């Protein structure tokens, strides 16, 4: 039985390679058919905000990679309701399940390993 891994992505999308490199861990795990979950927390929820135009910063489109998550078998996607509310984000570009703080605690319990980036 493969060990499950939860990746908690806390980085805003355009603050450097952090968000993309966290996502790459998830995609690589998915490519190996590992049970991977991804939780967007703190500024990480900005990755899911609609209408972003990274071209204006001469950056590649992170959302294309995010959309690839389900194709790579990473279907357990979560976003912190508290962090979304705090930032006024109502619409998400990914089918992530919005979870409250207590649910996040249970979520971390459910996975065998966790990486918070």
């Amino acid at each position: 039985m493969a060990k499950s891994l939860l990746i908690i992505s806390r980085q805003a999308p355009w603050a450097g390679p952090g968000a993309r490199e966290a996502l790459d861990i998830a995609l690589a795990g998915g490519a190996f058919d590992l049970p991977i979950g991804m939780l967007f927390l703190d500024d990480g929820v900005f990755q899911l905000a609609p209408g972003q135009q990274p071209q204006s910063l001469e950056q590649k489109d992170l959302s294309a990679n995010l959309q690839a998550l389900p194709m790579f078998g990473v279907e357990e996607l979560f976003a912190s309701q508290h962090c979304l509310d705090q930032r006024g984000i109502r619409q998400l570009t990914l089918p992530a399940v919005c979870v409250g703080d207590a649910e996040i605690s249970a979520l971390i319990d459910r996975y065998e390993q966790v990486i918070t980036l």
Partner: protein
Amino acid sequence: MATLHVLSHSPFTDSRLSSCLRIIGPDDGVLLCGDAVYALQQDSALQQTLERMPDSIGMYALQEDLQARNIDAGKRANAIDYPEFVELSCRFAKVNSWL
């Protein structure tokens, strides 16, 4: 399946510790290292918050970081060395470092 949360950023300039305390489970542990030990700064509001945390939550701080910064672990936190850090990471089911 309790988690050891490891923090290393100053709680006065960074939101990691407050996020961690928001989602922490009842049997989880917190290990403060690096600038995160400033959370134990005497008479700070944070120190008082940490002291009010339920007893079931283990509170630890890396001794070398306390000593370097002249911070006392206080009554609530246990000062630990590296062998004890290793032991804690065995005792908890997983380690969640807030990088």
